[in-house]
């Protein structure tokens, strides 16, 4: 397959066959038993652009006419021009230009890409394939360096609707885990290029996965959370969590909401409230036991740390980041701490630095180092004997590779888990869970199958390898994933491969393990049925 094939109207460009996929270890070593990836229906193929690989992440409606196609191509080009201008892309222009200009195509990044390796090295998923398309379009249609020379040097490309539609889907086959950037000797960030392509489609053409935009950032700004939780619903859920806390600990533990002047405004990913409330409850138990001054916020957006804008749209990102900072100012807290959510770490703590200036530049930190501090200084009484089962640790890309929060979670686990073991590779060299950059919440049509069978495949292999010696389903094992998004991906990945039943592997967050080891909490906190 060549770069220019992306423009060819030849039907589906790539087909993923089960026998192409990277082999998995026992008990998944027989490819014949690999679940069959769902095909989209013929009706969906007729209505949506599915000619990349038959997978639908966005589901772009097919244009009604030739004129419509041409209009969309012109829009794409106009968006690309803006992407290359300081005025319109002051946020990311410098790393974008660096990545476009400095790649020497040494391909050293290839083996770091979870989708590329797991797919059996499909050319379209190669981390350098997507950027090269963009580079060629820029050279020919913006810098006008095309013509005879590019045809002779084999760097030609034809910009048409087929290319544009495929490129949009292709921008959603990269989890933006940035492991490719980690290994690049020149600091080229091909993950960033996926992000920048997504921006063209969202900001200029109004094209983005429904889960990220309409039901994501738009819903968060309007209803308060991408989950749809309104302030009223939050009140009900907090009440429910307090009841649970009393049942589990035998103590009345208050979850403070809107407490002015608290030291810490703790913001969780609101998905925790609905799917993993034991995580938010565990934070409450730990902070209560350690006497920390903290609060949740109930203002719109203030109780949901997520900012899906970080995956596809700078404008939406800025709108949400500003809300978070304003609420912290209103509550007069000393700082914001982000709970176990990797993308919120990236959006609120790192990227928002480009937006939050002056009074809005509220201190924003991860909650993980606080936890390490409490555990290591014995601010809470712990008995590691209560966590006497095999535990491994998944490193969320944004927390670990991007921000360098590598040791605190390990210091905790070494102290409170008797059978902690690392997976390989780990730390900043980790592999993505396969659900990064919005994938874990993109639940429509056949995309969930792709992210289990392809982008999550290498993570499944890592987990199975880490538990190789205790793989029997009779031994309960725990993958600690301190990130809501990664947890959602593990849940779906484990269901897809029936990992729970076949291997006895469960998943959950970090604070649950801490509370499970707390001497003052009489009953075991981890309720295996829920992991």
């Amino acid at each position: 397959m060549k770069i220019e094939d992306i423009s060819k109207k030849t039907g589906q460009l790539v087909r993923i066959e089960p026998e192409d996929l990277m082999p998995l270890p026992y008990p998944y070593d027989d490819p014949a038993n690999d679940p069959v990836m769902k095909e989209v229906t013929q009706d969906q193929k007729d209505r949506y652009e599915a000619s990349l690989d038959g997978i639908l992440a966005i589901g772009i409606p097919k244009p009604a006419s030739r004129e419509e196609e041409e209009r969309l191509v012109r829009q794409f080009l106009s968006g690309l021009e803006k992407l290359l201008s300081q005025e319109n892309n002051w946020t990311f222009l410098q790393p974008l230009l660096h990545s476009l200009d400095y790649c020497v195509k040494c391909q050293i990044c290839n083996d770091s890409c979870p989708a590329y390796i797991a797919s059996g090295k499909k050319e379209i998923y190669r981390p350098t394939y997507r950027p090269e398309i963009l580079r060629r379009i820029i050279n020919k249609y913006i810098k006008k360096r095309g013509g005879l020379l590019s045809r002779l040097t084999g760097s030609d490309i034809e910009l048409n609707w087929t290319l544009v539609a495929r490129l949009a889907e292709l921008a959603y086959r990269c989890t933006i885990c940035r492991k490719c950037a980690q290994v690049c000797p020149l600091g080229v960030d091909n993950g960033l290029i996926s992000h920048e392509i997504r921006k063209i489609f969202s900001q200029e053409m109004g094209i983005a996965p429904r889960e990220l935009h309409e039901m994501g950032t738009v819903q968060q700004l309007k209803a308060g959370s991408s989950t749809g939780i309104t302030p009223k619903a939050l009140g009900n859920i907090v009440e429910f969590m307090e009841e649970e806390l009393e049942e589990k600990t035998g103590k009345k533990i208050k979850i403070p909401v809107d407490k002015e002047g608290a030291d810490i405004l703790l913001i969780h990913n609101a998905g925790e409230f609905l799917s993993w409330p034991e995580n938010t409850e565990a934070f409450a138990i730990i902070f209560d036991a350690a006497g920390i001054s903290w609060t949740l916020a109930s203002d719109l957006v203030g109780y949901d740390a997520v900012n899906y804008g970080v995956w596809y749209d700078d404008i939406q990102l800025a709108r949400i980041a500003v809300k978070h900072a304003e609420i912290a100012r209103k509550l007069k807290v000393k700082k914001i701490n982000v709970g176990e959510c990797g993308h919120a770490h990236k959006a609120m703590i790192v990227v928002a630095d480009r937006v939050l200036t002056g009074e809005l530049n509220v201190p924003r930190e991860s909650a993980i180092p606080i936890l390490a501090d409490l555990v290591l200084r014995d601010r809470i009484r712990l008995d590691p004997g209560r966590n006497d089962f095999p535990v491994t640790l998944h490193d969320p890309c944004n927390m670990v590779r991007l921000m360098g929060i590598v040791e605190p979670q390990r210091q905790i686990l070494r102290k409170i888990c008797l059978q902690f073991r690392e997976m390989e590779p780990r730390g900043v060299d980790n592999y993505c869970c396969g659900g990064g950059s919005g994938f874990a919440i993109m639940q429509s049509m056949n995309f969930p199958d792709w992210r289990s069978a392809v982008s999550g495949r290498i993570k499944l292999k890592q987990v199975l390898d880490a538990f190789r010696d205790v793989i029997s389903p009779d031994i309960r094992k725990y993958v600690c994933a301190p990130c809501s998004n990664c947890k959602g991906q593990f849940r779906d990945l484990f269901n897809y491969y029936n990992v729970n039943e076949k291997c006895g592997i469960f998943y959950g967050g970090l604070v649950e393990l801490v509370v499970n080891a707390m001497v003052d909490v009489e009953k075991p906190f981890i309720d295996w049925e829920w992991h």
Partner: protein
Amino acid sequence: MAKVTLGGMEIEIDEDGFIQEPDKWNKEVAEDLAKVEQAYPMGEDHWKLVNYLRDYYLKYEIAPPIRMLVKQTGIDLKTIYQLFPGGPAKGACKVAGLPKPTGCV
């Protein structure tokens, strides 16, 4: 988005079969959705779950936390999966006429 006939009515559904017009939901619509979800015929426990989800949704405009659903109905998670093979979110919520769950859930 496509239109299908559920409970004798034309109702718009999304690509994954969740109804887009929650006001049109009734018992017959639920039963037709249950057929798609391999949750038919619906017994007492099916209705207990569906009615709880429905009532919570009308009050709070979202589905409740799954733990709350289990606690309030007294039906454990394993049984929910037996009753609705699609699970509480993709199965039971769909039959109850709720929109597809969104966000990091």
